[in-house]
């Protein structure tokens, strides 16, 4: 037993340099080099991800800062855009607007039927479909169509049918109308938020030219004990 220990001691003393060198190297590899080297790729890729995120949010902040400088213009444009494409169907106002356009064009609105709401193909807006029956003469209808094309709440004509035989001395027109709105169900369209781009400025210029038809204010008292009387 003691002979073995002596032998080991002897071996250690004879090979001190080798043992220190190899042992130290092994320890360094096991304790420092391997753990750090294996951790570096993960930390590096995490840093790269963070760098990309930082670059992206810095870009976003830069964009917002440019938006802040034109905040006032954005606010007024939002008001205009809300008028063209409201955030709810707002049927009463739509009816008022169609009535106002008909009256100002000299057309008599005989009936206005709502035939439902449908979503656009890509789901970014909804359509309110209507059918209007009107009486008037040719120039009245021409004016009516022109006014519908330039009204501030967007109203699109989908179909037209005119008949001169139903209305002696005039025309009866059946016009398919479509108006639009966006609500929480519709998904927003996102872009580069570059308000100087030609696509956005031309649309903004277009909506600025649209004519608002203010609905008539009628002072009617509400509340009736028997509305069937």
């Amino acid at each position, binding site marked *: 037993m003691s002979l073995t220990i002596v032998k080991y001691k002897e071996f250690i003393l004879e*090979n*001190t*340099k*080798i*043992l*220190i*060198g*190899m042992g130290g*190297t092994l320890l*360094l*590899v096991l304790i*420092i080099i391997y753990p*750090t*080297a294996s951790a*570096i790729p993960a*930390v590096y890729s995490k*840093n790269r991800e*963070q*760098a990309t995120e*930082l670059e992206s*949010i810095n870009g976003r*902040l830069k964009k*917002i*800062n440019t*938006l802040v400088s034109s*905040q006032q213009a*954005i606010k007024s*444009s*939002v008001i205009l*855009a*809300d008028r*063209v*494409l409201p955030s709810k169907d707002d049927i009463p106002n739509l009816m008022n607007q169609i009535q106002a356009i008909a009256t100002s064009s000299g057309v008599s609105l005989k009936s206005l039927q709502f035939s439902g709401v449908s979503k*656009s193909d890509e789901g*970014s*807006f909804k359509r309110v479909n209507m059918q209007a029956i009107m009486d008037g003469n*040719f120039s009245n*209808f*021409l004016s009516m169509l*022109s006014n519908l094309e330039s009204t501030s709440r*967007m109203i*699109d*004509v*989908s*179909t*037209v049918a*005119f*008949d*001169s035989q139903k209305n002696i001395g005039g025309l009866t027109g059946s016009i398919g109308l479509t108006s*639009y709105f966006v609500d929480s169900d519709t998904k*927003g*369209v*996102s872009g580069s*938020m570059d*308000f100087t781009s030609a*696509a*956005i400025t031309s*649309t903004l210029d*277009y*909506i600025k030219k649209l004519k608002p038809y203010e609905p008539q204010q009628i002072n009617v008292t509400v509340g009736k004990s028997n509305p069937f009387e």
Partner: protein
Amino acid sequence: MVRKEINLLPVELKEKKKTEKVKTSLGNLSLVFLVIAGLVAFGSSTVLINLKLSGDKQTKDILRVQEKIKDLAVVESEASRLESKILSISKIVSTKNKYSVLLSSVSKAAPSEVTITSMTTFGENKVSVSGTVQSYLVLSKFVTSLMDPGIGGKIFSNADLTGASLDDVSGKIRFSMVLYLKKDSLK
């Protein structure tokens, strides 16, 4: 004459010297390894610490920028809402038909002797028109002017006369036709 060297050292001693030489070389080599390992350990630790420090800095920067963005979120959401609406509006406008152009074109192309009794849009880009006219000659003039590039031809690609007959009571000719609108002519 060749001189022969005589080595008087015993073989065991020779072997011992050889082993010692090998041990010394191995010892030196292992020390070199140790130094190299030390340098690599230092290097890798430095790289890792630097990466972690820069990661921490980036995390702080991200939080700082996000905080700033949060403060300006109202402006961003307003702008985003505006952009979304404008893009939707431009989509709607691009599909919008101006039917006043249709009425004007028919009006410009119609000779005074033509009376249109009905006009209806149907299908894709088709308009059916019926009416009365004094003579076949005037009807022919109407069709010609509907196709005239300076008048109706701006919006119509074709005019198919589907029927024309003389009404014995009124002495007028009743006609019906289908007009084909050019693509995007009402935009």
